[in-house]
């Protein structure tokens, strides 16, 4: 029996190799909860790398989290393109008015200079500080929006879908700009200390577009982009379904797939056939009203479904746990992983 527990990084790397570590790794993808820890407003919290680092360090210890999640908020990327962010006290910041007001604006769009984007620089500073705290033992997760999904914030959902169907040349021009930005942004995070990049791509889920559209429009972009990102990636569909495109997602070269609470981990695991590891799929929305017993049952169900043989990182299904989820619930999730996630999983057989 191995008496010494693995470090979080060893645990994660073992499961990504489709071997069983000492226990199922757990990524509690907490962002805004750091503000609660520090007694700050969400806006104030995300205004400084020091705050986010302190929040992540405290939460990693409190919940025995197997990662640092250095994600501020999605619209930080839109800020780099000249957009604004709207903050609220009880939820994630949102992108304000679209930076692309009309289709012709795409022709003028330039790849932002990361050095001139203050929000981006705060995230990079946080990576550098977290690297010291991680001491090579805790993976640090950086985040990018995929080139294909970023336009929802750049121009709005409706205008973007209209663009895809009605103006293919402008769509390609927008993708070229976003692809260059995404690669530069991801690699800057890796250089600053990120261990891996979570490639958020909700618009590519089969909830949003057809598998055929994924194969012809989105997947080639994801494949090119991921090939140029100089570190491992996890593709996350932020609650969207992905069963029909699992093979195509694996072909992009990504290592991990973030899965929806709407789909079966067992089915996804079988279909991905060790080409991908699973990240998910606790229902973050329901989690708000879970009892400790609910949390335990949910954790056990996922582990029983997809834990055997490794290839599973237990997490929520969206890539961000809602601000309304209480600390007691998060502790109950963590305790359940500690108790039921120990390998070998004799109880589930």
């Amino acid at each position: 029996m191995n008496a010494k527990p693995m470090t979080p990084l060893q645990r994660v790397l073992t499961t990504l190799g489709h071997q069983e570590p000492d226990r199922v790794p757990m990524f509690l993808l907490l962002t805004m909860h750091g503000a609660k820890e520090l007694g700050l407003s969400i806006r104030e919290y995300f205004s400084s790398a020091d705050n986010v680092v302190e929040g992540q360090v405290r939460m990693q210890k409190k919940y025995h989290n197997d990662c640092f999640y250095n994600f501020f908020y999605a619209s930080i990327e839109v800020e780099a393109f000249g957009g604004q962010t709207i903050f609220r006290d009880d939820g994630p910041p949102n992108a304000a008015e679209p930076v692309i007001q009309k289709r012709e604006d795409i022709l003028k769009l330039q790849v932002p200079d990361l050095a001139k984007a203050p929000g981006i620089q705060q995230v990079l500073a946080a990576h550098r500080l977290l690297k010291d705290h991680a001491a090579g033992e805790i993976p640090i997760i950086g985040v990018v929006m995929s080139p294909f999904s970023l336009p929802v914030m750049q121009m709005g959902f409706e205008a973007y879908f209209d663009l895809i169907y009605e103006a293919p040349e402008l769509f390609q021009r927008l993708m070229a700009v976003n692809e260059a930005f995404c690669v530069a942004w991801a690699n800057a995070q890796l250089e600053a200390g990120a261990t891996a990049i979570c490639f958020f791509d909700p618009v590519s889920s089969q909830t949003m577009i057809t598998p055929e559209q994924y194969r012809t429009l989105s997947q080639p972009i994801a494949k090119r982009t991921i090939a140029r990102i100089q570190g491992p990636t996890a593709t996350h569909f932020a609650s969207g379904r992905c069963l029909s495109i699992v093979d195509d997602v694996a072909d992009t070269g990504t290592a991990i797939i973030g899965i929806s609470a709407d789909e079966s981990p067992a089915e996804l695991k079988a279909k991905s056939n060790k080409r991908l590891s699973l990240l998910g799929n606790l229902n973050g929305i329901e989690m708000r009203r879970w009892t400790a017993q609910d949390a335990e049952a949910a954790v056990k169900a996922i582990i029983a479904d997809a834990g055997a043989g490794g290839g599973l990182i237990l997490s929520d299904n969206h890539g961000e746990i809602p601000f309304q989820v209480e600390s007691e619930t998060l502790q109950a999730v963590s305790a359940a992983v500690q108790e039921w996630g120990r390998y070998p999983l004799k109880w589930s057989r």
Partner: protein
Amino acid sequence: MSDSTVLELRDRLKNALLMIDYRTVREVLTGDHPGMTPFQRVEYLIVPVLEQIGTGWENGEYSLSQVYMSGRICEEVVDMILPPSDPSRIRQPKMAIVTLEDYHVLGKRIVYSALRASGYELGNYGQMQASDLVRRVVADRLQILLISVLMLPSALHVKDVVGGLQEAKHPVKIIVGGAPFHFDQQLWREVGADAFGETATDAVRIVHQLMEELA
């Protein structure tokens, strides 16, 4: 017109919508179909086909982009064959749709298009905060309010709208929809809504039921 012809037209319409084939959609809906009034084309062709596509999305067969484009195309054609001023348009009970607080308005647009493509006329309030929304609903004397949200905090603020309208003693039926209500099926009751629609088709069905209740 025979049942088999109607079924054939539905098939053509559905395939054309899924392929985003505007020309065929227009051909089917504006073609020479003797004895079929514009409103019957809406009722017998568009409503069931949008329902099939909505159900297909729910089952994972079709995508949201197809649901959105189908509704949008049908809405455009219906505006041609059944203009907003046409007396056949359904204007009562008075209703409107809104995105509460969020900045993503696709869900609202899909439901708005599906209702208009089904022959209903309704107000489009855009994106509003709870307190402003309460004032507007009261001022406009709405009987049905459809609320679309994407984020959990916005879904929870439906409670503020319900409370505000109760305080104003303004009776209105509230239908909610959006991802938080999908992922937590108890949430719509918790926030005090009268109904929850998983899809745009559900919204059309619920509005129809409420119309009968309110008649």
